[in-house]
């Protein structure tokens, strides 16, 4: 008898774990898309497009949020089994970076820009970013590859 380390892929987790991972991934993906859409609305709806640096960054936020969200919602390609985990890590960094950027601009200036108040669009975005961080972190934990001892017959 020989004990070997075997990777346990996401598909091999228990059904309940797989279900939690899928829900967490979908919730995180939708939260990232909401974050991006809110930034696009601010870009066009309240003229943030005229603000140097901040305007283009809002557009980049929309593109990144939607791209990461779609990557998390898309079926897992066979050739890139880690894509969802990479996208989840990217989504967490993206959401955290967006929160940090807001915190800086609310309490000081970011590229010379000072944000005023916590209007509904900002609250919605903050909630979506927090949800994204929590749900994608949960996804990474639940779907992490486990090194489980497997018993194989030694020849």
């Amino acid at each position: 008898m020989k004990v070997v380390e075997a990777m346990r892929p996401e598909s091999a987790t228990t059904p309940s774990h797989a279900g939690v991972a899928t829900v967490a991934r979908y919730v995180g993906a939708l939260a990232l898309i909401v974050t991006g859409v809110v930034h696009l609305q601010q870009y066009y709806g309240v003229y943030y497009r005229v603000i140097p640096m901040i305007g283009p960054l809002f557009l980049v936020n929309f593109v990144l949020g939607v791209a990461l969200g779609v990557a998390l919602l898309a079926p897992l390609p066979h050739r890139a089994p880690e894509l969802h985990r990479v996208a989840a890590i990217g989504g967490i960094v993206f959401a955290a970076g967006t929160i940090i950027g807001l915190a800086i601009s609310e309490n000081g200036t970011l590229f010379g820009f000072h944000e005023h108040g916590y209007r509904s669009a900002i609250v919605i975005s903050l909630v979506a970013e927090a949800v994204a961080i929590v749900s994608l972190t949960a996804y990474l934990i639940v779907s992490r590859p486990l090194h489980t001892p497997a018993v194989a017959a030694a020849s």
Partner: protein
Amino acid sequence: MTRLFAAVAVMAVLATGCQAAANELHPGREELKAATRGPLGQVIVDDEGHTVYLFEKDDEPDESYCHDACASVWPPLTTSGTPVVEAPLDRSKVTLLERGGGLMQVVYDGHPLYYYQGDTDPKDTNGQEKDQFGAEWYTLHPSGQKAEAESDEGGGSDAS
């Protein structure tokens, strides 16, 4: 985690190195003067030549209707003391309006004054005649009247 710390570090460096247009957080003692801006003629600018604007929605000198997103795009011109006023501006037309947080906004002839984030160069007047946040924005003549270009070619140059 390393990525997060890197992002924080980069943003902190950029934030501290890019203090620019918005003065309202740490205003000095503001200075107002007049400068010629093409077809608009003489308009009111600050000591660095940045064009300032009135908001037509502000119909009373003791109240600003520009807050939240509006104040982010149109930062109020604030001061830490009574502004220095150069001729031909009239010092008696300058008053102050208290905004939240102890910030005092400069008011000229009953018009609270604002910068425009779309003005990247001190000589820009891109906010002229913009219709944003419920009313139009104009530069001001030293008399306190809103400035309007004599031809349609004057004023703002960026699309709103």
